[in-house]
Every structure is written in structure tokens, then in C-alpha cells.
């Protein structure tokens, strides 16, 4: 193999072939995917995310949540995703078309979050879980995300967004103070609660 041009041509061809086959073909195949309604005139799915959820997604990314949590449900017969109740159906390409950053994830140190908003719909649970995972999930190896909360002097009455850290907890607010989620914390929880897989897609129906 002394022919330089043959080497260059082969090197270029192999990468162009894989790009065309894997990337370009997918782009063409997905170009026609749009949100659809499950009944005529009904809500279009996937939904557009709210402004808070979009802000919260940036927090999710900046804290690196996606390195321990995936956002994809594999079909029944491949792994235990459906059996664990991580979704009523597997996720399909259409579920992601409105996302400007797709966070499928490659590692599950913790559970999948594609439907975490459906599984845990209480703000309080999410706040306590982020404040210290040991409160809601004893034995978890998730770190606490105390940076998403602020210690605030107590007003005349407890503010309604104060979180309910058990008084016996080592980091419980001292007398005269309360823990409240910061703006980032509130947005993150809005994002987590927006992660729901509660609609039919032409490619995958919810379990009956």
C-alpha cells in the first residue's frame, strides 16, 4: 500500500459511509416526526416544556445528573425497565423531538428518570430527596445537593415553600431558620416533575 491517494480515498470513504448510514439517514428518517394527538383535536404529545422546566433542565445538566440517571425506557424483553415500572411503555424517537438537548444517558447508578414525574409527583418528596437522599431513600449512594437550598431566617409564619426536613436530621434548620429551595432548586424540581411518559405514541402504546 504505497498509493497515498488510495489510502486517503479509503479513509474518507469509510467515514463518509458511516456518517451517511448512521447520522444522515437518521436525520432524514426523523425529519417527518411531529407531535401528534392521541384523539382528534386532543392535546399534542410530546408536550412543549414549560419555561421553568427548561431552566430546570439546565440545572440538571450542570449538576451532571445524567451521569447516573438515564432517560430512556427499553422495551419489555430487554432488561427490567418495564417490569420496574420506569414507564408504561418503551420510549421512542418521537418522545424526544422537541428537546434541544437529548439526555438518554449511558449509566444507571440510580434508576431511570424518563417517567420520574409520573412516579413521584410531590414537590416535597423531590426537595427532601435532593436535600438529603437518605431522608427519602435510605441506603442510596446519591450525594446531597445542598447547593440548591438556602437557609433563611424564619418570618412571622413559616413560608409555604419551606421544605420539611425532619427535626432530628443533622442538617435540620436551627431554631428561627428554615430551609427553602433556591430558584435553581425549584426549577430543577419543575423539570423532574415534567418528565412524564403518560401518553400514547403511534409507535408505542401505554400498557392497558
Amino acid at each position, binding site marked *: 500500500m504505497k498509493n*497515498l491517494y488510495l489510502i486517503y480515498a479509503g*479513509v474518507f470513504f469509510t467515514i463518509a459511509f458511516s456518517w451517511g448510514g448512521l447520522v444522515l439517514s437518521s*436525520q432524514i428518517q426523523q425529519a417527518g416526526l411531529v407531535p401528534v394527538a392521541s384523539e382528534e383535536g386532543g392535546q399534542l404529545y410530546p408536550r412543549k416544556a414549560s419555561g421553568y422546566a427548561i431552566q430546570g433542565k439546565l440545572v440538571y445538566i450542570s449538576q451532571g445528573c445524567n451521569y447516573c440517571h438515564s432517560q430512556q425506557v427499553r422495551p419489555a424483553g430487554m432488561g427490567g425497565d418495564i417490569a420496574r415500572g420506569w414507564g408504561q411503555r418503551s420510549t421512542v424517537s418521537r418522545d424526544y423531538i422537541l428537546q434541544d438537548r437529548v439526555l438518554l444517558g*449511558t449509566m444507571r447508578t440510580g434508576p431511570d428518570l424518563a417517567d420520574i414525574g409520573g412516579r413521584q409527583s410531590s414537590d416535597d418528596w423531590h426537595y427532601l430527596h435532593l436535600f438529603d437522599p437518605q431522608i427519602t431513600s435510605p441506603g442510596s449512594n446519591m450525594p446531597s445537593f445542598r447547593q440548591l437550598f438556602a437557609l433563611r431566617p424564619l418570618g412571622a409564619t413559616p413560608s409555604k415553600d419551606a421544605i420539611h426536613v425532619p427535626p432530628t436530621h443533622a442538617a435540620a434548620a436551627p431554631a428561627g431558620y428554615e430551609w427553602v429551595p433556591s430558584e435553581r432548586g425549584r426549577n430543577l424540581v419543575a423539570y423532574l416533575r415534567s418528565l412524564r411518559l403518560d401518553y400514547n405514541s403511534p409507535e408505542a402504546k401505554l400498557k392497558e
Partner: protein
Amino acid sequence: MSSPSVQNILSRHNPLAEGNLSRVAQIDRSLRSPVVFFTVMAALWLVIGSIFGVISAIKLHVPEFLNIEALTFGRSRTLHLNMVAYGWSFNAIFAVSIWLMHRLSRAELRNGWVPILGGIGWNLTLVYGMFAIADGQMTGVEWLEMPREVAPVLGLCFLLIGLWSVVAFSRRQTTHVYVSQWYILAAMFWLPILYLVAQMMILWFPARGTVQAITNWWFGHNAIGLFLTPVGVASMYYFIPKVLGRPIHSYYLSVVGFWTFALFYNWAGIHHLLGGPVPVWLQSAGIVASVMMVIPVLVTAINFHYTTTSSQAWGVIWGSPTLRFTVFGAMNYTLSSFAGSLMALRDVNAVTHFTNFTIGHAHHGMHASLTMALFGAFYFILPRLAQREWPSAALIHLHFWLCAIGTIGYVVVMSIHGWMQGMQWNAAVMTPAQIAAAAEPWNYARTICGSLMTLGHIVFCVHVLWMLAPRAEKRQGPTLFAR
């Protein structure tokens, strides 16, 4: 061990003897500054990056360890990956590929300041990128976490550096073109294309939905497969025959190996998305390509195997630091690639995907294979450039055993635990917290193995700096394991 023939072969290891070849010495002199620069940068990043790896590993069994926002697991783990990938392996590959290409082309490096300028830009940009990651300005895209504004600078710097391999090749004074040269040339073309397309389609003009994920793994897997691996293989193809003083077993096999490698590796990355929300035909294509990777790997393994065994010079292979590291790397290249093909099978992947098994595999390829082979290359290259020997055989011993035990231990621990983890998740009986609790002893073992590797890296880095220090004493004759 000390038969005359072995000593005879070992004398090839003596850079001072080789220094008499004035042409080669001239080439080495022209390469000295850039290659030493990239080697030192690589060694420093390796140490810092490994420390972040250990910090991340500890966090998995002591979640509140160093739990400040800049070092939360998602960031320390990302710092580890980016430092060892772009800091260590890229700098190391710049050093090895520039040296190999000029030596094989019998060409001097003129304008050595250009790759150094590129290297300074590359490393300063990486420093900026690492602070940005610690500050949380991550993109969320694996292997492309640094904020997108680093891309034009890194791209330009890469061209300033990578260009010289192509220039050296076009100025070659030889009629023969060696296997290693194909691999390096191909790598220097593939990476900029991959990087440009991935940056454009994911970060600058994001593609639609999961096309991003497909592009991500087309890039991520190919950055390893079409850049790091080919230069690693080029290094093995050079040093094994070089130190043994024998020709490579079969030129024909290496041609088959190269083209099947180029064809199949390109398509394999999609196996990171098996079972995911991407077209099923694409997943099947990824599985086929991953399994077909058996061909280039087997062909290369046969070539290395017969080149080493036909020499019968076991004492040389064990006694030469270059060969011991390189052959260790070559054997693990074969093993980790076969494991990779198996992991792409649907039923195996259903268990191993999303678990430590994958992380173990990544370290098998990146550390046990590539990094060890690069160490082997440095043990050969640096004495020739510095015109002095490695100061201490004991430190090389220590480096080898810390890294060899650490890396094999790590792969074994992660593979066993990854498989258990996959079975536990799939059985849907244990809660996530129970699975985390069951992982604890394995996570300790992981930290221990990672710490051994890190200690090995510190030994290597200290040894490199000691050797290059102006007042290091000169040893007589090559530094070998067995004297």
C-alpha cells in the same frame, strides 16, 4: 536471560549506540522540543486526571466525600474523563505520532515551533475547559462536555499539531510505507472530521431529537476507535518488531486488518444505544459492525503473536520496558476488543448496558490497552530525545506493577460487579437503594484498583521529570528490567 543473543538484541535498545547513526540523530534532535513538550503535558494531565478518577470512585461509597458543588460526582467524573481523554491521551498521541511519523518517513521536523504553539493553545484551552466544567458549564453531551466555544480553538490547535504527521509523510525519504504510517495518517484525518461534524450537529446546530444521541455515539466511539486506537495500534506495530529486530509476520494480514478496521469500527458506535429510542435497523447495523470487529482484531492479534513468538526472545520481551508495556497493551487490545464485540450482542447488552461492566470495558480499552502501549512507546522515545537513560530501573518496575495490577484488578472488579448490577436491575426485585448497598464492597475494590493505577501514574510522571531534569546523572547503557 543473559544469553549472548538476548544481549545482542537488547543492545538495539541502546540509544547511544543508535545515536551514531547521524541521520537518525538529526531527526531526533529536530523532534526533541515538541515531543518532550507533549510528553510532559500528557504526564501531568494523567496524574491530575487520575486523581479526579479516584475522587469520583470514593464518592460512590462515601457520597458526602468532598461534596461541594464544583466537585459533585457529575462534575468530578466529567473532569476525570476529559482530563485523561483530551489531556493525557491526546497529548501522548501527539508526542508518539509526531515521533513515529518522522522516524518512519526519515524526515526532519522543520518549523518545530508550530506544533508547540498548537500544543500550548491546546493545553491552555483544556485548562479553561476544565474550570468551565467545575463551574457547571457542561453541555451534557458525553465526550463533548467542555463548553462549545472551546471547539474552534481546539480544532485549530489540532490542525497545527496533526498537520505535521501529514507533512512528514509527504516529505518521506523512504520508498517503503509502513503499516504504522497508514494508521497515523488515517487517525489524523478522521478526528478533525468527527469533531467538526459532532460539534456542528450536537452543539452549534443541534440535530433533531435522538439524532443527537446517534451523532454523539458515532463521535464518542469513533474518537476512541478512529483516533486513539489507530495510533495505539500504530505504536504496537512499530515497537514490537523494532525492539525484537524482526519484520512483522505478514504485510498482507496488516493490509486486511487496516481496511476491515476502517470499515467496521466506523459503524460500531451505535451499540451504545441498544434498546434505546433509535431505529431498530440502526441498532442491528451497530451490532453487525461490532461483531465484525473480530476480523481486524484477530488479524492484528495473529500478526503480533507470530512476530513475538517467532523471535523466541522471551527474555527480551520481559526485560525491555518498551516491550513489556507494549505487549501488555497489545494483549489487552485483543481481549478488550473481543469483549466489546460480545457486549454488543443484544442479550449480553441487555445486562451490561447502563452498568459498571461498560465502565470496566472503557478502562480495559483506554488504560490496559492504549495507555500501557503509550507508556511502552515513551520508554523507547524519551531516552533518544533526551540523550540520557531512564534514571531508575526500580521506578519502571514499580510503574509497571502498580499499573498492571491496578488495571487488571479494575477490569475484573468492574466486570463482575457490572454483571451483578445488570442482573439486579433487570430482575426488578431489589430497590435502587438495595442495589447501591450491594455495590459497596465492589466500589471499595474499585477505589483501591484506581488508586494503584494513580500511584503508578505518579511514579511515571516523577520519573519523566527526573529524567528531563538538567542535573540528572547519566547512566551507562540502557535501563532494563533484567541485567
